[in-house]
């Protein structure tokens, strides 16, 4: 009745705050929050792939010093690394199934080539006891393990985000406010389950 009474001036901001609270209670912030979390996890994954790729030239050089005759395996690693690093990793990669698959395949190929290289090096006792090689090997093992953890965390973050896009009330916000937000790609089980190169001391 008394719309312009002093009480009305107080009530408006109060209602605005209430509305804000209600909306955030409806998960209006969930999609961007989960998206950012998943992106952060993705950059973790990328970092570990990058670190692995940084370790490889040294490893190849070290192995070359002791086992030149394994040229085929060495070249396979170098080529696989070149292929993997040639893929431009953009933030949009995670929204593009085709590019993501290409990236994943290239990295999986590199994992395979690396595994063969480490298996082959078992044949060379001098190489196996080389300090540099041992250090590289343990760094590589550690990186593969961090990679497994980072991939696992990324898969979990993407699962949350993708679920939010598809379920109530997230799907309402996805269809209205956040139409540009697309589901993210995630690693397939095959790559995730892949064992780290088995290394015996």
């Amino acid at each position, binding site marked *: 009745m008394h719309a312009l009474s002093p009480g009305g001036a107080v009530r408006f901001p109060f209602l605005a705050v209430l509305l804000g609270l209600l909306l955030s209670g409806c998960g209006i912030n969930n999609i961007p929050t989960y998206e950012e979390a998943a992106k952060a996890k993705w950059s973790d994954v990328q970092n570990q792939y990058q670190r692995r790729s940084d370790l490889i030239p040294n490893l190849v050089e070290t192995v070359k010093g002791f086992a030149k005759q394994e040229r085929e395996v060495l070249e396979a690693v170098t080529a696989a690394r070149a292929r993997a690093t040639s893929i431009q990793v953009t933030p949009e990669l995670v929204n593009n199934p085709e590019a993501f698959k290409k990236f994943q395949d290239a990295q999986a190929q590199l994992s395979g080539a690396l595994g063969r290289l480490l298996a082959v090096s078992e044949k060379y006792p001098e190489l196996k006891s080389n300090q540099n090689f041992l*250090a590289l090997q*343990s760094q590589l093992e550690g990186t593969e393990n961090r990679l497994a953890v980072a991939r696992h965390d990324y898969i979990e973050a993407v699962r949350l985000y993708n679920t939010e896009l598809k379920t109530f009330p997230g799907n309402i916000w996805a269809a209205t406010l956040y139409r540009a937000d697309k589901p993210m790609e995630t690693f397939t089980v095959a790559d995730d389950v892949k064992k780290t190169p088995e290394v015996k001391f």
Partner: protein
Amino acid sequence: MGTAWLPLPVGEREYAEFVAPISARHQAPVIFSEHARPPSARTLLAALFAFLVLLAPAFALDFPQLTGRVVDQAGVLDAATASALTGKLADLESRTTDQFVVVTLKSLQGTSIEDFGYQLGRAWKIGAKDKNNGLLLIVAPTERKVRFEVGYGLEGTLTDAATKVIIETAIVPRFRANDTAGGISRGVDAAIGLLTGDAEASKQPVAGRPADQDDGWMFFVLLFAVGITFILIMRWVARHPGRPTGPHTGFTTGWTVGSSSGSNSSSWSSDSGGFSGGGGSFGGGGSSGSW
């Protein structure tokens, strides 16, 4: 796991009374009403229970309780060693704020020690929240596996190569000689040496190494030097927001961790009193060995 809310076995009569008002409110199908068969609802509940029990191990590992800085679930440490270790670990935290926990496990519950390790570290939240400077030495005598699980913030000091060398030169030889307690003690000493003497060790690695590692430490020093070069690579690569890339980057900030106040003089002299994780996280750093 997840079963605490389930009612204890109750008589059918009580059970029906418990179920009926709820189902009536929701206009559930007749089978849920009082006269129809309560056992069917009960069967459902039993099925749900069985389902939860079956699924629980698949989802979560069963972690031992964090009872102190030394958690000897496998029972391989004598009381004297355990309390000596606790003292060293407490002293480390008071000097560097790094939280270091030694844990022995009865079983890895079917997973790898790497998988178990980072999940255990995250579950216990070892290390300060803003520094992630936690460290675990995990020993699984049943599987004959040992692992250093290094928190994000310590990955620069305790590189994979450095931890590998500790495992191979200090720990595993003792374990092979059935001296589990000795291996753990030597491993802890070596890791603490790296964590506390980092600055000196990188300048003149010869000084300050224990003399009892005569055959192993030359190897160790060389590997450590190589490891240092990878710290540099890591600094290039591992630029995460909120994740210290080097061991000492966070040391200038005052550390503000509520629950890890185990470093306040009151509690760390006792065996287990009030020790808890400070909110640190783990990302799979460290290395493993077997014997």
